[in-house]
């Protein structure tokens, strides 16, 4: 109860200034704690009994809630339909809510109405240790250092620091060696497209005839044989293509001579900004929008950037048709697809 003492001294110190005559102080002084105002429950035993009943009732709500959780768990499993899943989730959650909120509100209500609301004052002390303690600490450290002889035996200091500095390598070297797989960052340069690879529908993998691609159509394309690849998902992440057919009269430019086939153009779907799949094709404006950061590319104009944060056009996949009339690639992309990186042009 020492705090009570400090409170009273504080209060008298603060209270005195008002009675002091003489020149006015530079600043106001702290008037000290306000007198305690009793609550209804402090004065009226009826109110206190009422509060007690309320707290008990709230705990009761919690108990009922917990029982509710058990009932809901048994009686309302998620089942096979969306509606039964929703019911299960709702009832379990609502019961859990009651079970928790009952305890929470009961405890707070108890504290607010029935526990003492007399404010308590505790003194603070400066954070720093006293000069004696500091001196003592320094002396202890000095003694230890002296005893170890680290200052006198220089060779020990050097040897110890070297050993401690080097030992993390024992963990770091194997980790760094393995964490990046084969570290073959040259893989960014190539995709699985090559001369003669058929363009197929995503995800079915069926090949596409040129005449299937009517004006205004948009096809999401993957290379033929993608799923036979060992790392097909990495290959897909680089090889996906969006193919559309424009009226050849609308085609303003393309990235390479003869890279389109009769108004059919194919571009990498991986944004040159940070790599989202760019796929919102507006067939009237021939604009292609990225839903992630709104880079907009003009498909009719070599996928030039017309808006947004991307800097470079989407790489174009040169295409033609094979003997059977199926669309095929003329080659891989002529530049790395996707976002920029340091050695991209090297």
């Amino acid at each position, binding site marked *: 109860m020492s705090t009570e003492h*400090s409170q009273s001294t504080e209060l008298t110190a603060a209270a005195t200034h008002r009675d002091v005559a003489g020149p006015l102080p530079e600043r*106001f002084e*702290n008037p000290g704690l306000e007198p305690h105002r009793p609550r209804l429950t402090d004065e009226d035993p009826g109110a206190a009994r009422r509060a007690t009943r309320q707290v008990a009732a709230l705990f009761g709500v919690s108990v009922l809630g917990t029982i509710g959780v058990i009932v809901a768990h048994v009686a309302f499993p998620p089942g096979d339909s969306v509606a039964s899943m929703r019911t299960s989730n709702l*009832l379990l*959650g609502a019961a*859990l809510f009651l079970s928790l909120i009952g*305890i929470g509100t009961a405890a707070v209500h108890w504290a607010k109405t029935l526990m003492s609301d007399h404010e308590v004052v505790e003194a603070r002390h400066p954070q720093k240790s006293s000069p004696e303690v500091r001196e003592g600490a320094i002396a202890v450290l000095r003694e230890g250092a002296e005893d170890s002889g680290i200052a006198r035996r220089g060779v020990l200091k050097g040897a110890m620091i070297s050993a401690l500095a080097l030992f993390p390598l024992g963990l770091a070297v194997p980790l760094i060696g393995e964490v990046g797989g084969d570290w073959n960052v040259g893989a960014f340069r190539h995709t699985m497209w090559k001369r003669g690879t058929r363009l197929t529908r995503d995800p079915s993998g069926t090949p596409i005839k040129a005449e299937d691609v009517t004006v205004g159509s948009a096809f999401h394309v993957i290379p033929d044989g993608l799923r036979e690849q060992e790392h097909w*998902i990495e290959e897909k992440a680089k090889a996906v293509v969006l193919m559309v057919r424009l009226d050849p009269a609308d085609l303003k430019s393309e990235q390479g001579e003869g890279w389109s086939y009769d108004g059919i153009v194919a571009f990498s779907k991986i944004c040159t900004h*940070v790599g989202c799949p760019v796929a919102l094709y507006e067939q009237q404006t021939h604009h292609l929008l990225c*839903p992630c950061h709104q880079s907009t590319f003009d498909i009719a104009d070599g996928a030039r950037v017309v808006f947004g944060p991307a800097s470079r056009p989407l790489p174009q996949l040169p295409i033609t048709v094979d003997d059977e009339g199926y669309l095929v690639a003329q080659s891989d992309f002529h530049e790395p697809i996707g976002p920029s990186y340091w050695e991209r042009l090297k």
Partner: protein
Amino acid sequence: MSQNTTQSRGATAAAATADYLDQRTGIGIAVKNFARKVFPDHWSFLLGEIALYSFLVLVLTGIFLTFFFVPSMGMTVYEGPFAPMDGVEMSEAFASVLNISFEVTGGLLIRQIHHWAALLFIAAIVTHMMRVFFTGAFRKPREVNWLVGFVLMLLGLAAGFSGYSLPDDVLSGNGLRIADGVARSIPIVGSYASFLLFGGEFPGEVIIPRLYAVHILLVPGLILALVGLHLLLVVLHKHTHYAGPGRTERNVVGYPLFPVYVAKAGGFFFIVFGVLALMGATMTINPVWNYGPYDPSPVSAGAQPDWYMLFLEGGLRLMPGQGTEWVIAGFTIPMNILVPGVIIPGLLFTVLGAYPFVEAWVTGDRREHHIAERPRNNPVRTGVGVATLTAFFVLVVAGSNDILATHFGLSINDITWVLRVALIVAPPVAFWATKRICLGLQRKDRELVLHGHETGRIVRFASGEYIEVHRPLDEYERWVRVAHEPKRPVALLPAYDERGVRRKGYRRDALRARVSRIFFEDRVDPVTPAELVAAQAHGEHDALPSASAEPVGALPAAEAAVDRGADAHQA
């Protein structure tokens, strides 16, 4: 009668247990010291508790989820009751999330509570940080604890992002792809950073297990340790309190830990958990079954990260791409990604972490502060905070621009342009407006102290004059408005000392004086007793000239002394 015996029997048992423990741990000392520890009562001091309790809920629900989640990218075919997913090829991670959501009773509820708690965790951290910032509760001796809290916020972001990606759905997969794009943009090491993350090319087969380790072991472990440190420091420092009657820099006024705070804080944990349960019961969050299993080809409209990452997303959206990809000596430096993805967040976080040290340097104040300031009493700090929040808000809005476009029938291009301008214009405007509002509120405080409350009672004198009767403030009410100390810019000592030798460190001091002037040149001082006496003696509203924005040259002697003192300390 029987009641009495059970009670005493219970008490005996408790005493025996306590004795057993104390003999083996000496826990009596801790109980004696902690049980009556005083915590001040204020709603804004509970914001950090919301964060703490969200974290506890995250741990509890997270443990539940680990029992069912399979952190594997191996392919499987899901068979289950949800028709659009039945018979679909997907990773085992995604399949296990569907299993949790549709087949484990209560699984969906726990999953939804977990995700809501994650969003709430960071919302509470940010709000708590705002409270600490705006009330100057980061000042000595709490700078280190600010840093601990700051690192906790970063860890919260890391926990959130790693968890968001675990279900291996299309939405979070595209988020990872963006992370990959940003990592690649880093000069020299970018490609290797990407390989390091994904164990090879994106997406690879290891990112989910790796994120799992980060999400359930590394980050929560660090958070737990730092939360411990954070709370330990709170106990060591004792909580700040607001200025008020009886509250000083040398005491702490409030309620004892046991029983009041145990009940209030403990009760609040259940309230936080209860609200989260209610949200999990009624509001769908992260419906991965809508997004589908990850596949590098598709993407859906509304491709956004969780709210706390939206500012990064917004930066990426606002940055114009034309001419911002530099090629120097054949090496590519994509500034369109580096600026919003690396440089701006880097700067923002550095400034945020370093702010207490910057302000300490500017004010040259080496004293301990335990009274939390009212935000209005430090207009420049409050302005800086609001300006930063404004920039953050603009970026968050930018990150939601497509949703705004569809919901308000606007053009996405127009929104982007408006926000590009707003990002540059709005923060200074917000700073200026906030500072003015703070100064205005301080003047309002002066008015109130000098002239009291308006009572609405009009009195007519015999002379025919009408006045409104004002009721003076009582001393407790007044104290809240006059407790803060008047602030002055630090004075600059001359460049040359009396012997005409150029003083060392003059430049640094000059810079400090300049920044300090920005902070404290425009100010409103608290009412002094003399001013109050004068006002009451005149009994008129306009008895005193308004005391704002005095020029620095007109400092009274006492204040000049304060300045000198601060300088002497610095020297």
